Structure formats: C-alpha cells, structure tokens
C-alpha cells in the first residue's frame, strides 16, 4: 500500500480553515442583513420600542456587528455556539438534540438510494437498449421530476393511510420504532437521489463494459458475470461516489422539506424556525454545522476514491 498517496489527509484540514472562516462570515452577515429583528419576534406584536431595545441589549444585539462577530468566533473556538434567543438555551444543546434524526435520515436515504441505484443501473447497463433499460431510464427521469413534498404526501396516503404499513409521520421512541418511522421519509429522499445516481452509474457502466480492460478480461476467458463484478462495477462506482458527495449539500437542503412533511425533529426544522424567528445564533451555528458536514463528506469521498482507484493522486 502506497501511503504516500494519502498525504493529502494531513494537509486537507488546514485547507478547510479558510473555507469555514468564509462560511462563518457569510452566514453571520447574511442573516443580519435581511429585515427583521429577533427581539421583536420574541416580544410579539404587542411590544413597545423600549421593550425591544431592552431585549436587544440583553442578547448583545445592540453591539456593532463586527464586535458581535468577534464574540461569535471567540466563543466558537472555545466550543460555545451562544444562546438561542427563542429557546433561551445553549445552541450547542439544541443542535445536539436535533443531530441524530437528521443524520439517520440522510444515512438511511443514502443507503436506500444505493440499494435502489446499483441494481437498477446494473440491469439497465447490461440490457442496454432493451425494455428493462428503457423502463428504468423512464422511471429515473420521472423520479427527478416529482417535487419531494408532493411525493411524500402521496406515499403517506398510499402506505400509511390506505395500507397502514408505516406511521404517517413522527420520529418514534425506540430505535426499532425510529427505523419504522423513518422508512417512508428515507424512501422519499432515496427515490430522487437514486434517480440521479442510476443515470450516472448506468452511463459509466456502459463505458466500462466497452472498455479495453473489460474486453481483455473477456479474452482471458472470464465469465461475463465475473467481468462485471471484478472489472466494471468497481470502476463505475467511483464517479458515483463523487456525485453522491457533491449532492450532500442538496441532500441536506432536501431534508428541510422532508423533516417538515414527516414531522422529524431534526436540524432542518431547527434551521427553518431559526430563520423565521431571526434566531441569529441558531441560524449561523446550524449553517456552520451543515457546511462542516458537506466539507467532511467530500473529504471522505476523496479518501474513498484514492482507496478504490490506484491511479488517483490528490
């Protein structure tokens, strides 16, 4: 094993620092630029300007914006994300409570999407131009076209209300219960995600099936099945992994809608409410967590690519 190729693992975290710094400034400033005032939201319609000023001072919102930023970064380095204005409790605790549902949702969706995409792409690629191929391509195009919230409601009506197979919505109390609750939401996300992956995977499989090394393998007398498993699939999967990593941002954005439709108490819902109530601390912290997650997933995808494909140098 050539460890030299994994050098980038050490250098990468240092490269990430400026990225996170940039993201922190952008989210910090953007959320404050939009009209609206957290103190006013907190006080409700029946508030006086004096009360608003008092609450603003209490949360340090009357300080200059650059000073607020300095405090934010200083606290962040010390592992403190500040206090939510709406919930009046540490943002770190709020995020901690919401992390697991979102992680489970994304993980479940990715696993289901791969479980759907790999077999479908394999069938389509090996039966190129035949009925199965056309059907799979048609379905995956359709899968991209359905808006997720509509698809979610349709799935609920069919599988939960009509056939009573899954709960309509919610998160559940035990782990088994949670898997049962998350099945439909994961399936909803997986349908759209697998559509993207299937199309991509099918194309790379077709290219690999026609490649010189596949032909050479066949010439060595390997069965078509062995050629597919040993020579086609591993090579075709690499672009799909990177596609998945690139799509993680989309996936995180997508969970916001899915969490709302299926009432999953995750980070997406926390972010949406944070934005509507101008809970600055929550918005900027959740955005930072999402940004870090995206960066980490892309980093892991790079490691995986290097591990699978000996030609890649990063």
């Amino acid at each position, binding site marked *: 094993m050539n460890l030299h190729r994994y050098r980038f693992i050490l250098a990468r975290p240092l490269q990430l620092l400026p990225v996170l710094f940039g993201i922190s400034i952008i989210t910090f400033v953007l959320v404050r630029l939009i*009209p609206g005032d957290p103190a*006013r*939201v907190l006080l409700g319609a029946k508030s006086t300007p004096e009360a608003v000023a008092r609450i603003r001072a209490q949360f340090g919102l009357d300080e200059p914006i650059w000073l607020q930023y300095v405090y934010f970064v200083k606290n962040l380095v010390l592992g403190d994300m500040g206090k939510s204005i709406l919930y009046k409790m540490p943002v770190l605790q709020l995020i901690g409570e919401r992390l697991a549902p979102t992680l489970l949702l994304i993980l479940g969706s990715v696993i289901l999407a791969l479980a759907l995409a790999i077999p479908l792409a394999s069938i389509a690629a090996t039966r190129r131009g035949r009925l199965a191929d056309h059907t799979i391509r048609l379905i995956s195009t359709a899968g991209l076209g359905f808006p997720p919230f509509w698809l979610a409601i349709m799935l609920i009506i069919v599988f939960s209300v009509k056939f009573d197979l899954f709960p309509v919505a919610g998160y559940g109390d035990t782990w088994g219960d949670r898997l049962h609750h998350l099945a439909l939401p994961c399936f909803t996300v997986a349908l759209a995600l697998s559509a993207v992956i299937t199309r991509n995977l099918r194309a790379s499989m077709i290219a690999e099936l026609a490649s010189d090394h596949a032909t050479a393998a066949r010439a060595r007398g390997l069965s078509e099945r062995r050629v597919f498993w040993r020579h086609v699939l591993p090579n075709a999967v690499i672009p799909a992994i990177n596609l998945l990593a690139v799509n993680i941002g989309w996936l995180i954005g997508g969970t916001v809608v899915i969490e709302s439709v299926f009432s999953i108490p995750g980070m997406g819902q926390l972010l949406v409410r944070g934005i509507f109530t101008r809970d600055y601390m929550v918005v900027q912290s959740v955005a930072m967590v999402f940004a870090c997650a995206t960066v980490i997933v892309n980093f892991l995808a790079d490691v995986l690519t290097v591990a699978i494909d000996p030609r890649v140098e990063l």
Partner: protein
Amino acid sequence: MPSKKFLSMCAASVFALLTVGTSIASADSVLTIGRREDGTTFDPIKTTQNVDFWVFSNVFDVLVRVDKTGTKLEPGIAESWQISDDGLTYTFKIRDEKFSDGSAVTAKDAAFSLTRIRDNPGSLWADSYKVIKTAEAKDGRTLVVTLNQPAAPFLASLAMPGASILSEKWVTEKGEDALTDHPLGSGAFELVEWKRGEKVVLKKNPNFWEKDRVKLDGVEWISVPDDNTRMLKVQAGELDAAIFVPFSRIAELQKDANLEVHLDPSTREDHLLINQRNETLAKIPVRQALDMALDKKAIVDTATFGFGDVANSYVPKGALYHNDNNLLRPYDPEGAKKLLADAGVSDLALNFIVDTGDEVQEQTAILIQEQLAKAGVTVNIAKVDPSSSWQMEIDGEYDLAINYWTNDVIDPDQKTTFVLGHDANNNYMTHYKNDKVKELVAAARVEMDPKKREAMYIEIQTIAKEEAHWIDLYYSPYRNVTRKNISGFYQNPLGRFFLEDTAKN
C-alpha cells in the same frame, strides 16, 4: 445474473429494515394533540407565543381565570378578592391548593410571581405589570396588591398565562434556568418530558385542587408542522386531535365519520393596515373610499371558505364591549370612486405587502387588488417573509398590509391602547391620529364603572370606524379536529384549551 441476486438481497434487507419497527401503544386516556409548532420555553414570563401559552394553561394555574365564554373572570388560585373604594388596593384570598410536588401554594408565591413578571430583566411582559406598586403576603393565605393608579384592566391581566403562579422556594432553589424545560406548577397537568421539536408529555397532576374534574391520565402535544400531514395523522388515528385545521380542509373533514370538526369562537380579527404616513392615505375620505371599495363578504368567503364573519369593529364579536351596531360600510365601488374624485385623488397607486407562504393572505391580497382596481386604485403586491413584512410595517415602508390580532386578555384596553391609544408604536403601525380618541382610551383605562366604560368603548369604536383607522376584514373561529371518541374538547375565545374537561372514551 449478479444483478438479480443483488437485487433480491437488497429487497430482503430493506424489508427487514422496515419491519423491525414496533409501534408503541399509548395509554388509553392519554390525549395526543397535533400542533404546527413546538413550544419555546416553560418560563411563563419569557415568551409571548400562543404555542407556549396554550400549554401553560394546562400546567400552571393563575390567580384569576377566564371562563369558557371568554368574557368573564372567575376564581383561580384566588378564591375571592376585594377592591378598595379608590381602586388602588386589591386583597386576594388564596385557595388552599398545592403545587404538583405536594408543597402548598401560598400568598408569598403569588407575590413573588407578580413581582417577578414586573421586575425580572428577562420578562417580556414587564410593561403590562408596571402598574403594580407592591405585591405582599399579609399571611399565608392573604395577598395584597397595591397599584400606582386605578386600572380597570388589572384584574383581567392576572388571568394572562404570563402571570402564572410559581413556587418561590422552588425557583430560588433550582434557579431560573430550571423553569425553561422542567417547571413546577399547580395546574391540571404536570410536565413529564419535553422532547424539543417533537413533543411535550404531560400527566395528570394528582395534587390539582380540581383533580376530580380531570378525566385524562395525560396529554401529549405533538409537533406536526405540515398542515396536510397533521390532518392525515388524525384521519389515520395516530392523533386524537389536531389544531389549526386549514379552512380549505374543513368541509372535507366534516364528512369523515370518524372525525368531529370544532369551530369555536375566537377573538381573531383580520384587518387591512393603512399607513397614514402616506399623505394621501392620511385623508379620511380616501380611507373611507378604500373601505367602501372592498366587498368584505367576498373576501371573507374566499379567505375562510365561508366559515368566518365580516368584521365591523376592531373589538371582536362576542368580546367585552364589542359594538354590535358599529357601522358596516356597504360595498359601493362607484361611491368610492366619487369620494376619491371629490378628495382630488386620481391615479392612486399603493404598495401592498403580503407574507410569502401564507396562502390565505396571498389570495385575499389578489382579491383586494381586483376590487380596488374597480374603484380606480392600482395595487402593487410585494411578497416578503413574515419577519421582514413586520419590520417594514414598523418602519412605515408600506401602504397596505394584512395583519391579524388575537386577544390574550378579556379587557379591551390592551388592544385599544396599541391600536388607537397613540402609544409609542404609531398606533399599531398605521400612524393614525385623533386626539379625542387618545383621551378616551386613557380615560377608559381608569374608569371603574363598567357602564360608563362600555359607553366609552362604543364611542371609540364608532369614531375609529368613521375615520377608517384601518379596514376591519373578518372574524374567524378556531378550527380544531378530534376523533369521534373524544368529548369535551373546547377552546375558549382567548385560546385556552379546557383539557381538564376533555375525555377519551
């Protein structure tokens, strides 16, 4: 074929994954209610949100309660009370009741809670209780409150959820922050668990002084933000009840044999704000013309699918001192045109800000745009998110905007002060000015004779309508749905759910 084998393996594992789920059977008399949003805190003085208040009424008790009609006060923790002739001293007799941990509720606790809402730096309600000069316990059962000046609305303000009575000893020992998510109260239920973003779990308080009245073993307030999902959960029997039924779904749900739709009278009043910082809109005839140009019946039918009523006053129908005979300007687009022409106004173009994502508001705005066009007024609709629109209204960067108000106190003083009292908020963003109304509002606040007060509020409503301080649009009911086996589910006009009377059969 490898793919076939792989496919079957995947199918099997997916199936296994999906079937391991077990569904929990909830105890029989635990009522599950779906609501749009989760609460934000259990500290009564640190929130102004209805989502919090509606649960506070289950967990805490107040000195004075509002009855089911939402127009009368009745004894709560205070068994009885006396008001001195000068209206400055209130003496309350505290009931012999207990907090859910078994400790006694005393006059000291009541004095502590009232002082706290007035003085605590985190209190969002301090302004409403500044009228309190002192709150002292004469003995364990006697609370004496003195005021800085006579205040007719004072007693009613004690029924607000913010003024819930807390245990002084408990708060002092556990600290302020403990109230945030595991409070101690003396209401019908006590908090067992709050899974933020998911649900609030309550159980019957065995020490509640009216415990024989409570039929449920517990209540779960479950957050289901999506309206469609929330309705589907009740239809599928996963929830016993859901609140905030969209108007568009009422007729359909009423046909479901398993469900009962409750349309309980509310104090919600939707209105059209008119920014009178705009010089044209500062002219009374122009505002009268806008009122005449609107077919309010068509608006209420569109917005509420016929479940609301045209509003004739800023004081909601059924609420204290509502003027039944207030003017309802007839729909008359031609008359409106003439009025505008007489006032020398032509080519009037107005900016109308609307909350994005609020379907009802968007439809109403389009209807208003069409109707005003018939009177020759051009309306430009701008959609902005709710927090932004509010800020724009406060900054005076609008001409027209839809807004609504729900009362959280039975006395009309709070709303009247905000809307017409010329207080610091530019008369609720309208910049309406009338010194006579200003004086009347201040006088009505200190008038202790109910008859005289009523006459004052009728006069205020009459002038406000005459001068079209804003345009009253419609009153609408609370819309809730329960399964048929739920009885006694009721929300009073101030929004309080009487879950102590609810049963699951």
